[in-house]
């Protein structure tokens, strides 16, 4: 008996319907969903870190206008529900942007569901990262920076070679927490029809009518994904440990 047959039998005899194993259509959907979740997570992580760094840099700068704008951005995104932000972007903002014209002469948006999900997730996680990096930068003693500058470093050089590496290491554990949250938040993309893991699972269970089985498979997949991420990051944190400090 092949594995496929075994799982078909499991369904017929015991009503445990793991259609993702024996049904190629469901399996493909599930795998695609998983890959989409990975894609959303990785791209949004990278962008949110860039946003966080730029924001923290602006907050430490001299321009009052830029500082104010950054603070406004951080507060607006930190204090409103990410789901509504996503819907706001996808349904309310998107129609105002110029679109491209496709072969059928239809105006299609330049940014699709996946694009908006990435933008929205990056902005939300990025706003939180600004705060994380800012407090990391504040934790670097000003004497350290002054020492670097007295050694002839310019402000940018001192930032790049001395202050930032220290601040980044200090921020790392808070950053990791936020990134785990980001992975979990990718589930919101479900609401705008992005075929990620939750969407794929929901599509499977509402058509193959196997809610319990799919729910558990999906939950286990998310837990493994997050366990994998924290496993990697624990190694990174250990490798970057700074002797003589708490971090």
């Amino acid at each position, binding site marked *: 008996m092949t594995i496929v047959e075994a799982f078909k039998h499991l369904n017929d005899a015991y009503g445990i319907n793991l259609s993702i194993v024996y049904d190629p259509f469901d399996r493909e959907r599930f795998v695609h969903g998983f890959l989409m979740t990975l894609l959303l997570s990785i791209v949004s992580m990278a962008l949110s870190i860039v946003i966080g760094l730029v924001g923290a840099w602006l907050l430490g700068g001299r321009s009052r206008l830029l500082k104010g704008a950054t603070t*406004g951005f951080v507060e*607006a995104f930190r204090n409103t529900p990410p*789901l509504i932000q996503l819907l*706001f972007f996808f349904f*309310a*903002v998107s129609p105002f942007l110029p679109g491209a014209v496709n072969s059928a002469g239809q105006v299609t948006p330049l940014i699709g569901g996946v694009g908006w999900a990435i933008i929205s997730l990056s902005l939300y996680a990025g706003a939180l990262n600004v705060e994380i990096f800012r407090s990391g930068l504040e934790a670097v003693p000003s004497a350290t920076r002054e020492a670097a500058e007295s050694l002839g470093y310019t402000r940018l050089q001192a930032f790049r070679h001395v202050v930032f590496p220290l601040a980044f290491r200090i921020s790392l554990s808070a950053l990791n927490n936020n990134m785990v949250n980001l992975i979990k*938040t990718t589930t919101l993309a479900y609401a705008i029809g992005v075929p990620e893991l939750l969407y794929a699972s929901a599509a499977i269970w509402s058509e193959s009518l196997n*809610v319990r089985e799919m*729910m558990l498979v999906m939950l286990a997949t998310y837990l493994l994904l997050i366990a994998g991420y924290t496993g990697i990051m624990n190694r990174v944190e250990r490798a970057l440990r700074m002797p003589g400090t708490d971090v």
Partner: protein
Amino acid sequence: MFETKLTARGVAIAFAAAAFVAAVSLAHAETASPAAASILSLVVKWLPLIFTGFLLNLLVSVLSMAIGTVAGVPLGLAQIARHRVVQRCASAVTQFTRNAPWLVLLFLTMFLLPFQFRLFGQSIPFPAWIKAVIGLAIPVMGNVSEIVRGGVLSIPRAQWESAESLAFSPTQTVFKIILPQALKRMLPPWMNLYAILAMATPLIAIVGVQDGLTDVRGALVAENRTDLLLPLYATLLAMFFIYCYPIAMATRALERRAEVKF
């Protein structure tokens, strides 16, 4: 002082941005259709319903926080228990409930919990919104557990040792010496968690509970007008902002005070 001025300016800018979005959408509507002047009146017309829905969001957030906290505190204490099995189990439950996506947990409670409980031959109804409360209370429990663990562990070992030398029992030490001190450190992350929870409540709309978000979407269907999208979503965003921002301010103020103290 400098800090508060900066944040105040940030808020002013955030509000200005919101006003700008509203103005742009109004102006756009003006050019799009002659009936555009009524857009404000349409928002006003649906405002009571949306606000009622928003109140349900708040109610759900308060109840979930209460249940999650009541369940999370003992779980957190169990995480630092001396008993190996208790400690292992508690930390496994904590990890599990902290790491599962909130929306997935909501789906789980929504679809897999029955809508009625039988207790002593009586059937007790268990409506969808209460299931949503439980679905959100689960991750709150895990996070509270971590906050409690972190808070207690942040108290220097010397405090335990001196309590022991003063002949306090372990239970007495926890409740009379450690917790009162740890509480101060646990309060800011706990409040932060509450703000995150409040902002997660619109997720219940996805699993079919009629909250503020459902009402916004209902209004959009009933009016069937594209030009209402921006103003109505912005209205709901503003409600959450007005509620969550003061909490965030208070949390930061407490954090700063704690920093000075210790």
